[in-house]
């Protein structure tokens, strides 16, 4: 920031300039009168001894020679001698001497004495033609000693003369204006300043008046007059550096008072550096052009020429000085723009602020202020809650100014914005980048805390634990210490490290460091959970009881009662358990808090064989919550209770009622859970007697749905039929369901059928459509893995191996090493193999072979294709070993044993010298009846026959 104050002062304090201008005529008048005196002449003169006429002559000579100090004693002596002499001549001499004495005093810097004598002169000789000049001289002397009331008095007295010559009028108005201005009589100063601005003949005076007028308006808060005045300011004044500095300073003053709009309007009026420079350059050229060489014989005398030249030179020097001042202001425009933008920002008008900040750093990327502007552009968008734009701006800052002053603020803010937008992974990336860019980050504790929190949300408890623990050990004074302590305990709880979680929660709850614990309520509940996990049931029950007593308004109250129900139920105290579950439901704040104790209560009722109560409980629940509750589980419990009562038809009816009620909406995945239950019942040995009833009921409901035109429900029933029928009937239902146009109306179960059957039929686009719909509408369904596997099969079927590889990786990340993932990973290996990436395929098959959970049917297949890959890579002996392992170790998997034999023979043929072993291998192969029945077996029999025949011939 540059300080406008010096410039402003330079422009406003114009008195000195005015004074010099006024002195010139007085000097001129005096110089022509005397011849001057030498030092030896002076030494021979004694003022008190000489006659008055000699004194007078000496004075004139001395004044002519500017020997002002020497003239003073002579003038004082004259005044002393003539004091009280009323003759006309004496009065004239007295007047002359008094005026000259005042003049000498003024010139010698004795302003107070000079002013006093000028005033004395004017008062004593009111009819003297010099009277007004004397008052103005007095006023000027008083200006220099800043006796502004006296200046005002003298100038005002002069202006009372209505016939005052124009030149004196301007000077008097100047003096009066400045006197009022300096006394901060803003309102009173306006009139003379306006008059002065109108009358002034020189730029200096005009600009000075303009500056003071602007200041008066600003101080009077009269923006209406200010904005009327400014457009009418002539170019010279408007471009005066002093005026612009005054605007800037006035802007600052208002800004500091919190008057941002006024500050904005004042800053906006400040002209740009280029405009000021252009104006000053033009003025300097004009003045220079006017300073022409003297031409003898013209209208102008040499004296007049020199006088004018001096005046022009003075003007040139003054303009040059101001020009240099402007030119040397670094970042002048940027600074004005920054202030303007800041005002907009403080007014909440963030868009203009942003546009200005943007302009600053776009136009001045190397300016010292560009960094601040770039950061501000980011922060105003945050203020405006324009998250997408703010994020883009923030990332651009980090990218382009990795060492910027505000880097730490930007990275932290970006992280928080990402979190606010629920983009936790992106927030995490930014946090990591923040620490990479700035290992000593200004907010290192906060960044670590947020990183820990994000990892916790992403279920990555190990890293979360590390982050929270680091805050506790490295930054004990951090404001995030308490949060870190609580979240560390939570992380331990979620890791199942109950042994550490319990003391961690206890330590947090007893930590005297926090006057008011922000997580006290939650931690009190979690402590009970940790104790429960440690099987400290008595302590856990005590903790939950204490919690329910201490926090009757808690959002966790219902859950605490549910936990107490579980604890009592585990002790066999079923009535107490049921009581707690009912309290849990009464205090529930949302459906989930109702559902958990409800189904827990059902379990207790089941232990008590109170099946009728279960049916009633579930009926009430379904009535009260309908599809907002867990209707699938309720149906399950109803069915289970009826089955226990040996009333399966009522169970089936309960299922079908719920399916009919909610099954028309494909989004309700719970319907498919009930349908699966029916399929399971149909296949159950215990309920096999009810198969005709089930078929009949399903048929009736399918027809009912078809009559009502419920396409989704029809598809659901058809999907069930496809699951329980066989042969042509099965094909008929599959054909009805597996159609591309059914995808949009299908629920999750139907989509799985479509996708799986679509793979069999090679209808890849339908499979992808089904998978896409599934991913979009049922992201948490249990069937997700199956649909993704179908999608993976389709990609491989289409030859889109790279995408298949990617999906294979996604499946692993999403589902881990669960048993069903093995097939997906094997398919990924297939994709790599089919893509000719045999080395990678081998690694992928090795993964399948290495995971214990995946051992089984996948193993011989993975071994077989590992052998195939080795063959492709030319490692025939290694391939041979793979094939051998299959028929040695996995004999029951005929579909792999048969080709493995065949491939083994291929290997031996390639290796050479294994003729006998080949014959033996064929014989061994054909000894296995199952293998002999395969196409490979048939081929082997033919080949063996040829070999034996050939051998016999030999």
């Amino acid at each position: 920031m540059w300080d406008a104050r010096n410039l402003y002062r330079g422009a406003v304090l114009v008195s000195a300039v005015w004074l010099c201008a006024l002195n010139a005529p007085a000097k001129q008048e005096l110089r022509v009168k005397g011849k001057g005196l030498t030092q030896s002449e002076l030494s021979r003169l004694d003022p008190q001894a000489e006659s008055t006429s000699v004194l007078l002559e000496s004075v004139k000579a001395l004044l002519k020679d500017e020997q002002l100090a020497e003239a003073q004693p002579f003038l004082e002596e004259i005044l002393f001698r003539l004091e009280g002499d009323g003759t006309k001549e004496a009065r004239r001499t007295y007047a002359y001497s008094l005026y000259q004495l005042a003049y000498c005093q003024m010139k010698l810097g004795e302003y107070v004495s000079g002013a006093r004598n000028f005033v004395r002169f004017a008062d004593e000789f009111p009819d003297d033609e010099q009277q007004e000049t004397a008052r103005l001289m007095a006023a000027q002397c008083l200006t220099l000693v800043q006796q502004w009331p006296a200046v005002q008095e003298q100038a005002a007295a002069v202006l009372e003369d209505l016939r005052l010559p124009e030149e004196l009028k301007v000077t008097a108005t100047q003096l009066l204006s400045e006197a009022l201005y300096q006394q901060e009589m803003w309102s009173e100063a306006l009139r003379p300043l306006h008059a002065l601005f109108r009358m002034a003949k020189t730029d200096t005076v005009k600009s000075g008046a303009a500056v003071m007028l602007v200041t008066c308006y600003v101080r009077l808060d009269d923006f209406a007059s200010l904005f009327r005045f400014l457009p009418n300011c002539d170019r010279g004044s408007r471009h005066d550096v002093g005026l612009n500095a005054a605007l800037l300073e006035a802007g600052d003053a208002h800004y500091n008072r919190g008057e941002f709009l006024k500050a904005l309007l004042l800053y906006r009026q400040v002209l740009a550096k280029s405009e000021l420079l252009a104006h000053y350059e033009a003025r300097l050229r004009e003045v220079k052009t006017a300073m022409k060489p003297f031409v003898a014989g013209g209208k102008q005398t040499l004296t007049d020429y020199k006088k004018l030249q001096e005046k022009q030179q003075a003007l040139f020097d003054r303009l040059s000085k101001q020009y240099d001042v402007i030119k040397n202001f670094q970042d002048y425009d940027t600074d004005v723009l920054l202030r303007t933008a800041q005002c907009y920002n403080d007014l909440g008008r963030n868009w203009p602020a942003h546009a200005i900040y943007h302009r600053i750093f776009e136009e001045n990327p190397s300016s010292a202020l560009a960094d601040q502007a770039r950061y501000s552009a980011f922060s105003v968008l945050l203020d405006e809650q324009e998250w997408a734009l703010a994020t883009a701006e923030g990332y651009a800052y980090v990218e382009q100014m990795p060492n910027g002053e505000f880097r730490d603020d930007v990275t932290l803010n970006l992280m928080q914005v990402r979190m606010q937008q629920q983009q936790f992974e992106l927030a995490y990336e930014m946090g990591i980048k923040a620490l990479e860019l700035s290992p000593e980050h200004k907010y290192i504790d906060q960044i670590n805390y947020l990183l820990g929190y994000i990892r916790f949300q992403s279920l990555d408890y190990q890293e979360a634990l590390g982050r929270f623990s680091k805050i506790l050990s490295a930054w004990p004074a951090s404001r995030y210490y308490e949060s870190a302590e609580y979240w560390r305990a939570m992380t331990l709880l979620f890791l199942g490290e109950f042994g550490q979680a319990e003391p961690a929660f206890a330590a947090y709850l007893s930590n005297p460091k926090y006057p008011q614990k922000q997580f006290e309520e939650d931690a009190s509940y979690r402590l009970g959970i940790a104790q429960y996990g440690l099987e400290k049931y008595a302590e856990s029950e005590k903790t939950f009881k204490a919690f329910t007593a201490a926090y009757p308004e808690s959002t966790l109250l219902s859950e605490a009662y549910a936990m107490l129900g579980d604890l009592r139920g585990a002790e066999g105290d079923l009535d107490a358990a049921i009581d707690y579950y009912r309290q849990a439901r009464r205090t529930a704040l949302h459906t989930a808090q109702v559902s958990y104790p409800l189904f827990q209560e059902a379990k207790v009722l089941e232990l008590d064989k109170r099946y009728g109560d279960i049916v009633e409980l579930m009926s009430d629940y379904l009535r009260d919550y309908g599809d907002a509750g867990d209707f699938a589980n309720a149906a399950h419990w109803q069915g289970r209770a009826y089955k226990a009562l040996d009333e399966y038809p009522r169970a089936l009816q309960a299922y079908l009622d719920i399916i009919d009620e909610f099954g028309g909406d494909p989004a309700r995945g719970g319907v498919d859970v009930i349908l699966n239950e029916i399929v399971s019942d149909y296949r159950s040995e215990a309920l096999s007697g009810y198969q005709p009833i089930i078929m009949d009921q399903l048929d009736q409901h399918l027809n009912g749905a078809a009559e009502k035109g419920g396409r989704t429900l029809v598809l659901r029933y058809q999907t069930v039929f496809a699951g329980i029928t066989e042969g042509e009937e099965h094909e008929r239902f599959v054909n009805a369901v597996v159609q591309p146009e059914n995808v949009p109306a299908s629920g999750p179960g139907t989509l799985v059928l479509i996708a799986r059957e679509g793979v069999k039929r090679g209808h890849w686009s339908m499979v992808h459509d089904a998978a896409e719909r599934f991913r979009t509408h049922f992201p948490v369904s249990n069937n997700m893995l199956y649909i993704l596997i179908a999608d993976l099969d389709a990609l491989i079927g289409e030859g889109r191996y790279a995408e298949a590889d990617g999906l294979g990786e996604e499946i692993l990340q999403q589902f881990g090493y669960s048993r069903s993932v093995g097939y997906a990973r094997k398919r990924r290996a297939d994709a790599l193999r089919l893509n000719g990436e045999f080395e990678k395929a081998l690694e992928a098959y090795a993964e399948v072979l290495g995971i214990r959970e995946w051992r089984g049917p996948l193993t011989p297949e993975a071994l077989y294709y590992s052998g195939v890959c080795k063959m492709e890579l030319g490692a025939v002996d290694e391939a041979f070993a793979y094939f051998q392992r299959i028929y040695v170790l996995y004999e029951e998997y005929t579909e792999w044993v048969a080709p493995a034999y065949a491939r083994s023979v291929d290997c031996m043929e390639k290796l050479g010298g294994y003729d006998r072993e080949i014959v033996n291998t064929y014989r061994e192969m054909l000894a296995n009846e199952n293998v002999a029945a395969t196409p490979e077996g048939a081929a082997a029999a033919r080949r063996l026959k040829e070999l034996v025949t050939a051998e016999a011939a030999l």
Partner: protein
Amino acid sequence: MFIVLAPVWAAFAQSEYAAKVTLNTGQSFVVPHLDVQGERLMRTGGTSSVALSMVESIEFRFTGVSLSMCESMFSHGDRKALEGVLEQSIGPAAQFCSLPTNLGPYLLWWLRCQFWNGSQAGAGRTIGYIRQTGRPELIDAAGMYFVLMLLDQDKPENARTVWESVADPAAVSKPMTAYIQGRLALEAGDPQRAMRYAAELAAFYRRDEEWMPPATLLEAQIYQKMGQPLKAAAAAEELILAYPDSQWSEQGRKIKMESTGTGGG
């Protein structure tokens, strides 16, 4: 040649204009007013005439009006007075705008005054005159004012059609272009884009006397559309304070009243 003609110019000082006619041959003469009959330009007294096809240029000079004066009066906000002056001086000559004259820039000043003074009928007529000059840059400028007139008349579709016909709006005026784009974006229901244009004016043309006040008004209106009444009031307050006794302060008061229930300045 001009020295000889100078007294002739002086002789016409009392009339609204005089016109110096230059022929293809290089000859020129001054007439106190143009008299065009059919395809011929009649010389003073009607005793002789020249074919219009022989006229290379006609330079009008108007009593008491110059382009620099237009600029000065316009920027000082004396738009009513300037419109009156131009009506009086340019009006009688405007009918000759299809000839190769120097009327174009005067007509544009006239149009600008008419537009801002709300003289819709006059502005429509002047746009017609400007189109007849055949000068693309002036036609573009007139088209841009026409766009704004149509927007003020709540005819956004027509405005958009006219806007699309403007060949090079930025060459006419960048701030005006930004302002029109802002208005069109707001009309199209995209207040965020509109705001970017309004903000661009604040960033790059902060002392533009013609476009800064409407841009501030636009900013206030956009905030209203965005449901941010306090910000709308803040922008309106600027109109009240910075442009006293003008249509801008009036509109500012109206918006402030709508936004906060009080319209005081």
